[in-house]
């Protein structure tokens, strides 16, 4: 089994006529994902790689009965794209776009309250259930189906971790990239819960980084509710304090959000924290 997405997930691609949207729509299709449609306002009626393009999410949903949407539109249009998905009650929304204003995300989180819609991202690589479906931008071929669940705040660092798992013949149930922004939809604790409940996930890998308080909340949750083994890697141990390292959320603002503090809190919760990404396979075996 896997969490959130599988071979039955029907996804639409918002921004399918753009450079990234069209490239990754094809990559997803080639991987076996059911990409049932695309949305670009004003370009309805076209086809991209055999995928029908619609003018709106509403039209796309009526025509395809999709149950997931992935967003590749530029930052200034991303809020409206997400609001469109929420208005049309698309159960799972994955937002790849980076650079979205924080107050836009405050609005999105408000719109998500009292709905059962799951938002992954923004500024994230998406998610993949190897062998079943990938929704996002990760290279499919580095993954292998198996029983380790992966949750990460990073994109490329997640690929690094997965690459090492696969090279050591350890497959993954689902890999979820949460995104690096200060305000994101789905957080560590949400995915930890799903992996804990998933009978085919045996162990969990967490990839965190400096800044913010999510790893601390995750540690708290693990201590109370997670019985499966958890291995973690935290990036930014040698980052200079107060310098912005690309992710808006990764600013060391208080003592607690340093890598060392997070590592300690996770260890106290029973998590095995490794020094290098290529030590994860040994730790999770």
């Amino acid at each position, binding site marked *: 089994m896997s969490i959130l997405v599988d071979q039955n997930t029907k996804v639409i691609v918002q921004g399918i006529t753009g450079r990234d949207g069209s490239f990754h729509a094809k990559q997803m299709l080639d991987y076996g994902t059911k990409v049932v449609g695309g949305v670009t306002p004003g370009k309805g009626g076209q086809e991209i790689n055999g995928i029908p393009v619609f003018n709106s999410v509403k039209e796309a949903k009526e025509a395809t009965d999709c149950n997931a949407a992935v967003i590749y539109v530029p930052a200034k249009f991303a809020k409206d794209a997400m609001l469109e998905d929420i208005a049309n009650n698309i159960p799972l929304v994955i937002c790849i776009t980076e650079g979205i204003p924080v107050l836009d995300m405050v609005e999105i989180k408000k719109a998500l309250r009292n709905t059962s819609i799951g938002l992954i991202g923004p500024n994230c690589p998406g998610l993949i259930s190897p062998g079943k479906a990938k929704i996002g931008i990760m290279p499919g071929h580095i993954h292998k189906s198996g029983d380790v669940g992966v949750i990460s705040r990073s994109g490329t*660092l997640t690929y690094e971790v997965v690459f090492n798992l696969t090279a050591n013949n350890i497959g993954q149930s689902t890999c979820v990239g949460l995104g690096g922004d200060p305000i994101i939809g789905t957080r560590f604790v949400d995915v930890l819960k799903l992996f804990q409940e998933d009978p085919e996930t045996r162990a969990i890998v967490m990839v965190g980084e400096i800044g913010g308080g999510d790893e601390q909340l995750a540690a708290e949750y693990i201590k109370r509710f997670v019985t499966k083994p958890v291995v973690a890697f935290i990036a930014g141990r040698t980052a200079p304090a107060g310098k912005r*390292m690309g992710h808006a959320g990764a600013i060391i603002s208080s003592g607690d959000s340093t890598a060392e503090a997070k590592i300690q809190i996770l260890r106290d919760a029973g998590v095995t924290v490794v020094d*290098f990404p290529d030590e994860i396979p040994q730790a999770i075996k």
Partner: protein
Amino acid sequence: MKIHEYQARILFAQYDIPTSQGDVAQTPDEALLITRQTGFPVVIKAQVLVGGRGKAGGVKVVGDEAQLKFEFNRIKNLNIKGYPVDRILVARAIDIKKEYYLAVTIDNIKADVVVIASAEGGVEIEEVAQTHPDKIIKFYMQGAKTLDESRWAPMAAQLFSDPSLQKSATSILQKLLKLFFEKDCSLAEINPFVIDEKGNLMAADAKVIIDDNALFRHPELMALRDVSYEDADEIEAKEKGLSFVKLEGNVGCIVNGAGLAMGTMDEVNLLGGKAANFLDVGGSSNPQKVLNALMILLRNKDIKVILINIFGGITRCDDIANGILTALKQIDIPVPLVIRLTGTNEKEAKELLTTAGLTTFTSMRGAVNEAVRASK
């Protein structure tokens, strides 16, 4: 983006938030001209984008022209945490009766805008928050963009016993919130928020930080950026779509993705080398970005080797490979390149580089070890 106090005061004025009369000056003569309007005493304050200017001697109340000239020149020659003082705010000195704290910011975990207020304002506010959290009021907006006055009223009453001050503080908070939302702030802070000699509430300082991601909506604010606070290479990198932070070491790093860039920096440092920088070429990379990144790195003469660590996702490895090949043709690269490429279009990339006689690594540890070795 941080802006100076005098710039934040201009925003405050636009939103009708009371501040004491004053203006910014670069010379003692300009300062003197301002005092014609304000009278004496005035407070003169160094305009620097780093904290702790008061403790560094960058703030002074002066009572006459001679003292103004003397102190102005003294502050102008200060260096506060590595930054020279270019501009000085000159404002009527307020006879402060009591100091409060008022700010609007974002609580990321709750994904909500929060008003923070305290009757214990001033420079020790962070200590108050640590030792007496009960003296800090946190009021969540619950997704609203305007103040729910009935919900706020008990907070105002907790801060001020005088009903007219409650009313005045509420009105100022409404304006501060309007500014916060309309200008896409991540922080709008008044500390200290004071009662002056006439019993009126006033902003005795102004601090505003604008969300960089939202600057596209505010061309008028983009002009407020003080580039003297940013490293020239870092500014150029930003203009070219690269995220770059200069560090002390000699292993130049070009990586895609912030997480992997951080992980690469950590791995270089933990395996006995010293990273010279953090550089994220970002997603959707085009070959030009690699050329730009190499050019910026090569200006740093400490660099002994350049490690290129790419894990292709949205970034395609062949784009990066083409960028490397273009760079080799166009510029002189006097240090060894250690290249690691894995992921999207990896095969095409390796073919391109192998044809050109370059070797590549598949594992990150292998590449980092080689780069550290070459840096010694």
